């Protein structure tokens, strides 16, 4: 019964989006209310699913399309095996956390959008579509279906970014469209290769086929050129979507030019969903056994991820605009996530190392979403409240905006990795995993990332707290500019930042509990099992 929930999680926002558009014909400005209602229910459903997965210890599987589809047994040459027909949705210990994250962030971003906009029913329609797409990415158990959901997310994102006013947003959106679609195509080519080789698209079936489990394979397919190339295409495609250096070129513009509220949302979830997909495919479809054969492939990805950490942080430090700084910071942070993903399946990793790398990857993925969403919310709030968008403009604002500045400080330090915060827990686990795998260059990069992220965070905090305001302009006398909310700051906008800061610290304290939820995941990775079973 509860497996129906998986379908509902995807369908509900999609239905809600039509509702928003339909009701919009009757009433103006109904979109926010529809979105809030739908996402509140969605959040409830997500909690239920998480409860069933983590407390009940279930692995939920829902087959789309009814009785005709599903896992069918076939007999070939006297051997009976089973194969999935159609599309499976899977709710397991890995996807459960992402589902909760998506639902939570989607709801929280609404609190920000209430005042900050963009307004209009069409916007919320796209917003709900994107939420549905993100749920789909999280839940699908099918490689091709994953591409579909990635494209839903992508197209919705292009539209959301273009909702920003001015030509820059349009250009940024276009750039993202071209680059993002190219990346998605690479992924699709990779999936095509896999399909050619294995004849399967279901992740579990593909994984088994690659391992040579089906009776019509002579042995493992790990060294087949088509399979190896498939991973290369998939990795490049998803790295583009996750904005790994030097494939990140679309990302800073997209984040910076999008409306503040949209940035909060996409920065927290868009790249996160792609990185999650990469982790799922790397860990559970290709599995460590594949990388034991193709070690160099893994090391190229490690190299890119390490470069991403360093380059992202350094470029971030050179930015003047806050939103650009945070955007480049994401390049670095996803570099860390990719490092974690690769360390977990590295042939040199012991069981312990894999365990910690899995912990660190997922916790950092979720922690980064919370932190970065919160940071963009505070940056947006400073822009909305004080009109400050650059480093020099935020000088001395801590006096006037203590809560927003305080949240920014907590989130920033969490990003640096100061305990007790979720940023520390994630980085620490990844670092411990890398140490356990004896990947010393990776260890150096991870610990250097702390100093490098301090480079730009310290700059911001120094401006915020220790540099006096440039000019004494008494804003009380200036009439607020009315357009698009103008300089107006709601409790909702400030609250998102504050909440993110509180959650970042709370998750830091709950790091060990969070990690224990992931135990089935690392066991599956260690065993090279295609299914995460508690």
């Amino acid at each position, binding site marked *: 019964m509860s497996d129906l929930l998986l379908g509902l999680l995807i369908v509900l926002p999609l239905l809600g989006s039509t509702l928003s558009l339909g009701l919009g014909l009757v009433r103006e400005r109904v979109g926010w209310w529809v979105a809030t209602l739908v996402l509140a229910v969605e959040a409830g459903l997500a909690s239920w699913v998480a409860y069933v997965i983590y407390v009940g210890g279930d692995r939920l599987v829902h087959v789309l399309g009814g009785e005709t589809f599903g896992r069918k047994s076939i007999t070939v040459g006297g051997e009976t095996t089973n194969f999935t027909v159609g599309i499976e949705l899977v709710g397991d210990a890995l996807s459960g956390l992402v589902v909760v994250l998506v639902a939570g962030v989607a709801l929280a971003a609404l609190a920000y959008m209430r005042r900050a906009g963009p307004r209009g029913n069409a916007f919320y329609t796209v917003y709900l579509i994107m939420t549905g797409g993100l749920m789909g990415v999280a839940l699908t158990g099918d490689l091709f279906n994953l591409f579909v959901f990635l494209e839903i997310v992508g197209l919705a994102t292009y539209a959301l970014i273009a909702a920003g006013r001015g030509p820059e947003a349009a250009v940024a959106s*276009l*750039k993202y469209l*071209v*680059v993002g679609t*190219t*990346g998605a195509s*690479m992924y699709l080519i990779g999936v095509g290769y896999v399909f050619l080789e294995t004849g399967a698209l279901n992740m579990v079936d593909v994984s088994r086929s690659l391992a040579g489990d089906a009776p019509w394979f002579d042995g493992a397919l790990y060294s087949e*050129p088509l399979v*190896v*190339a498939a*991973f*290369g*295409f998939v*990795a*490049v495609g998803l*790295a*583009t979507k996750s904005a790994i250096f*030097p*494939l990140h*070129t*679309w990302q800073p*513009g997209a984040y910076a030019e999008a409306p503040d509220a949209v940035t909060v949302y996409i920065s927290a979830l868009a790249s996160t969903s792609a990185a999650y997909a990469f982790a799922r495919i790397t860990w559970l479809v290709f599995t460590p056994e594949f990388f034991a054969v*193709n070690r*160099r*492939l893994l*090391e*190229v*990805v490690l190299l*890119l991820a390490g470069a991403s950490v360093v380059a992202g942080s*350094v*470029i971030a*430090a*050179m930015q*003047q605009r806050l939103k650009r700084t945070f955007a480049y910071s994401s390049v670095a942070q996803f570099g860390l996530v990719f490092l974690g993903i690769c360390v977990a399946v590295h042939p040199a990793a012991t069981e312990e190392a894999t365990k910690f790398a899995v912990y660190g990857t997922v916790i950092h993925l979720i922690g980064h979403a919370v932190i970065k969403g919160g940071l963009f919310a505070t940056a947006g709030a400073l822009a909305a409240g004080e009109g400050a968008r650059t480093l020099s403009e935020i000088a001395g604002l801590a006096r006037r905006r203590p809560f927003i500045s305080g949240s920014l400080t907590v989130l920033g330090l969490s990003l640096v990795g100061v305990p007790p915060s979720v940023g520390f827990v994630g980085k620490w686990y990844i670092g411990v995993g890398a140490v356990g795998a004896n990947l010393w260059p990776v260890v150096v990069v991870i610990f250097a990332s702390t100093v490098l992220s301090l*480079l730009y965070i*310290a*700059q911001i905090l120094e401006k915020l707290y220790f540099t006096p305001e440039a000019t004494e302009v008494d804003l009380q006398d200036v009439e607020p500019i009315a357009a698009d909310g103008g300089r107006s700051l709601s409790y909702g906008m400030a609250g998102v930042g504050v909440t993110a800061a509180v959650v970042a610290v709370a998750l830091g304290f709950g790091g060990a509990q969070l990690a224990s939820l992931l135990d089935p995941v690392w066991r599956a990775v260690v065993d090279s099992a295609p299914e995460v079973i508690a």
Partner: protein
Amino acid sequence: MVLDTVPPVVIVLAAALLAAVLPRRIGHAVGVLATGGVAALSWVVPEGAHLQVTLFGAFDAILYNVDPFSRLMGLIFGLIGAVAVLYSYASGADSRQTAIALSYVGTGLGTVYAGDWLTLIFFWELMAVTSTLLVWYYGGAAVRAGFRYAVLHGIGGSLLLAGIVWHYVEVGSVAFTASAGLTGGVPAALAAVGIGVNVGFVGLHAWLPDTYPRPHIAASVFLCVYTTKTGVYGMFRAFPDGHLWIAYMGGAMAVFGAFAALLQSDMRRLLSYHIQSQVGYMVAGVGLGGAAIGHSGKYYHELATAGAFGHVFNHILYKALLFMAVGVIIYRTGKESLDDIGGLGRKMPLTAGTFGIAALSIAGFPGFNGFVSKGMIIGAAEKKELEALWYLLLIGGVGTFLSFIKLGYFAFIEGEYTGDIKDANVGQSVAMVSVAGLCVAFGLVPDLLFEILPVPAEAYEYHTFTVPHIAEGVGLGLAGLVGFAILRGPLHHVGRVPDIDAVYNRVFFYGGRGLIVATTELFAAVDRVAVQFVRLCYWAGSNPVTVVFRVGRRLPRTLQPDFVREDLSADGGAVSRLYIRAGVGTSIAILVAVLTLVLLVAL
């Protein structure tokens, strides 16, 4: 008996505390009673009494252990302690100095009554501390000398400690009874050098003449007794079976000390060299104390051991007496040097008389106590057929005669002392006469000594007054007299002769200063580099765009990115923004390039 388990160190340290706070007279009385009591206690407490505790939950330490050797040491330490406290009182030492001196006596007693190496090294180090305090208390030149003393004894103590730790690791117990002496090899070598500092091995001896002449005259009486003799005792504990090298080192000390003494004019400095010389005899005795050393017949090594401890006992008596007599001269005249005095014999007959007894004792003239014990050691060397050592010990004897004839002649006989001067006061006289009496008594009736020696007299059958022995003693004396008659002129004004410490004090001073300067300079240099580096990093972190510009402009022209060539004058020369944006086309090109790279590596 309750007293069986009260370590003497507790009694004397309690007395030291009392002496510090009580009025001077009562305090000194308590000191005399306590040390005298310890002497009596050492006499009556039966062998085998001990107090065992477990230290740090790991070591079975024997804080108090009575055996024949520690008993002899306790007896003489207590006895001379009482005399020295009396002398202190008579010589104007204040309560606090006597309190420190008593704590020094106490730690010395703790060392000789220790039943294991851990307790021994504990009191050994404490003794170095208390003796340093005793020197420092006098102030003036004594402070720097005391510092040098402390450093050298700190090093020696650490070496011994290292030897003991090593020994513990090898044997698994710190008790004396667990093994015969310290483990051979490195532990024994470390201990030999460490103890060698205390007994004044040649080369390690310079602290002796450096320190002992400087403090208060009464302090010198204490100092001349405990440190070196505890060293001899420790040497015996470490090497109960002797060692040939140690025996020869003893011979070298005997000769070196005696002739170095001959060159001195400062009276207490002269006496200090004689401590080294006399301790050389004891060290030779300890070194010979093994059946395997030299010719092994008829328990000669028992004779050597008995001689060593007999000499410890006798030496403490006459050396304390010498320091007391010389102390009286300094007390009355205020002069330290032989060059400044003379003809005191007629003015200070009692001092001259007791000095004479002590001098004849130390020189080993028949009828005085030094003759008995020194004769035993020389006899052991002779019977073990170690002729080189035997000659060394005889030459040392000649040197001793020479230097004491010199001291006595220039102080008491030659010249005329102008001015009114008194002899020793009552307290000093009582102290000196009683010790002088003991010197004579033990000299005339050697059996008294054999009675209390730790080695039973039957074991070695030594006859003191045989013709060859007496001839030897008298002969040495005659040789000394003749020698002095020849050397009298040059000996009078030798001036200060530099010792080995002239070298190592300089080495330590300049080496230490060089080391400190080098360390601080190195630290400063590292500090400068580190600060520069951090400053640079900080600057780079604060001005990343400028850094990129500057680095970019250093690149070869063809590699320079476009943005570096931008004209900065519009911005007032300041660099604030950097445009590095990849267009859509570039982005796709990069994507394809990365894909190509990945596929190239993979396939």
